[in-house]
């Protein structure tokens, strides 16, 4: 990560970053997938990667995008082409920490728990992990993800991971 830890974020930076994550997870939990790519800069990276691959520096991801366009492609596939049993995800984040930054760009980490509810089954934990992200403030002052990397402790997935987190 490039962000220097010598520029601690101010309280208002922290508040703005927390608001970004609140809106991000609310959008996903509500199933407004078309809006999801808008949280990202045009040049961005998105990854859900198992801890096993992450720690071994093996790049294979469960879900991955090299650009905002690929996030859009993922959304199209989820909505138009993939076949799966109906379900809801709810994402719980905690321990959000802004690790440092430059005043324009910040490193952020947070824990994430995903609870899956198949419509005819009790709710169950789908997985948990830690987000290791980079967020930037763009030309219009909006916060966007340039890197969202969710390192997933859960290496054995209950059949499928349909939606992003």
């Amino acid at each position: 990560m490039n962000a220097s830890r010598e520029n601690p974020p101010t309280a208002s930076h922290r508040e703005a970053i927390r608001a970004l994550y609140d809106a991000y997870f609310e959008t996903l939990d509500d199933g407004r997938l078309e809006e999801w790519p808008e949280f990202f800069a045009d040049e961005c990276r998105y990854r859900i990667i198992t801890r096993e691959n992450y720690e071994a520096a093996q790049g294979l991801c469960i879900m991955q995008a090299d650009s905002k366009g690929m996030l859009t492609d993922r959304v199209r596939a989820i909505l138009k082409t993939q076949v799966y049993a109906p379900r809801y995800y709810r994402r719980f984040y905690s321990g959000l920490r802004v690790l440092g930054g430059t005043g324009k760009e910040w490193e952020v980490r947070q824990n994430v728990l995903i609870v899956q509810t198949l419509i005819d089954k009790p709710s169950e934990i789908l997985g948990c992990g830690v987000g290791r992200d980079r967020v930037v403030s763009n030309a219009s002052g909006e916060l966007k993800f340039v890197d969202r990397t969710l390192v997933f402790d859960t290496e054995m997935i209950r059949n499928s991971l349909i939606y992003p987190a």
Partner: protein
Amino acid sequence: MNRIAKTWPAAGVSEIPYWVYTDPEVYAAELERIWYGDHWIYAGLEAELPQVGSYRTTTLGERQVIVVRSAPDQISVLENRCRHRGVRICQLRSGKLDGITCPYHQWSYALDGALQGVPFRRGIKGKGGMARDFSPSDYGLLRLKVEVVNGVIWASFSDKTPPFRDYLGEKLWSSYERIVDGRRLRIVGYSRQSIPANWKLVIENIRDPYHGALLHVFLPTFGLFRPDQASELRMDETGRHGSLMSLPARDSGGGHEDVTRDLAVDASLQLADKRLIEAVKELKGVETLGSCSVFPSVIVLQQINALQVRHIVPKGPGGCELIWTHFGFEKDDEEMRRRRIRHGNLFGPAGLVSVDDSEVFAMAQRGYETAEDGGATVVRMGTGGRENRDEGHMATESAIRGLYQYYREVMGL
């Protein structure tokens, strides 16, 4: 071996009885006759074990083994169970060992499984100790038969399993060595999913070209696969192994409508970033997809620049795990490595294509588990079974019938 008290439908292999997917007695017999019988089971890739002492644990059938480079030119596959009190010795998925020592009473084994040390074997101050007739050479870890073929490690619980290439058959060898051609491999990563469905659904699926463009809307929508592409379906003489190759879409005449009429394709959909599926040619031939399904444990598959082994681990009649090892070649440059990772989006538990399969497996299992006695799936597309080789089209289920011709023989059904 006891006969299984089940009667196969009179229609033969064009009907697959639901009980092959649900019955615990049938499942127990599969473990014994198939997984622990005269078959080669996938144990890993040589690239995973770079140095003497490098090991991985993996599961063959339901039994866990340690796969370890025991000498520069030797790989040993050992059951991960101490011969003393039956304790699972290695707990990690991978690492490096000097020897193999059980945590309970410190029995220690060499990397090839030979028992080397039994603490207090001669007793303490002359008292106690191991029985006098105890011979350490009788108490090594269970060693499986091993063969390494073009970088892939195969193991068998049976000494009678024929050499791998004979086991696979010449017909399938070219499908196998098209993907693992002997070049040194490099691991791109793993993914794992626990599928609530019988293991046989996974191998039937890859031998079923009929579902390709129908279930996987992504493929025809984004131009990766059309039902009128020339394809080649191969089986070995026994019917147990299968291979599906598909060639680039051709202008087959006969009109486009006939091809797409039955498909749920929205022609207006385009990819925003075509790098998701843009491939460069790297293997022999013009095939866009090539798979080699080595019964019972594995599918080796290439699609675009994703190269992978799909390793099946049965977990009772109603479940299995699918472990994906994506690999490339040692000489891949950074751009190729990134391309393989991108193409990995199509596969695994969030696969843009493969999610359709694992979800449908679960839906199928739910259908079977509530089925009436005597019910069966219908497998009547195309003609013939294992004798019917090299069909050049996709409207067929002959390779599923071929698979069950072999299955009935090995299972005595």
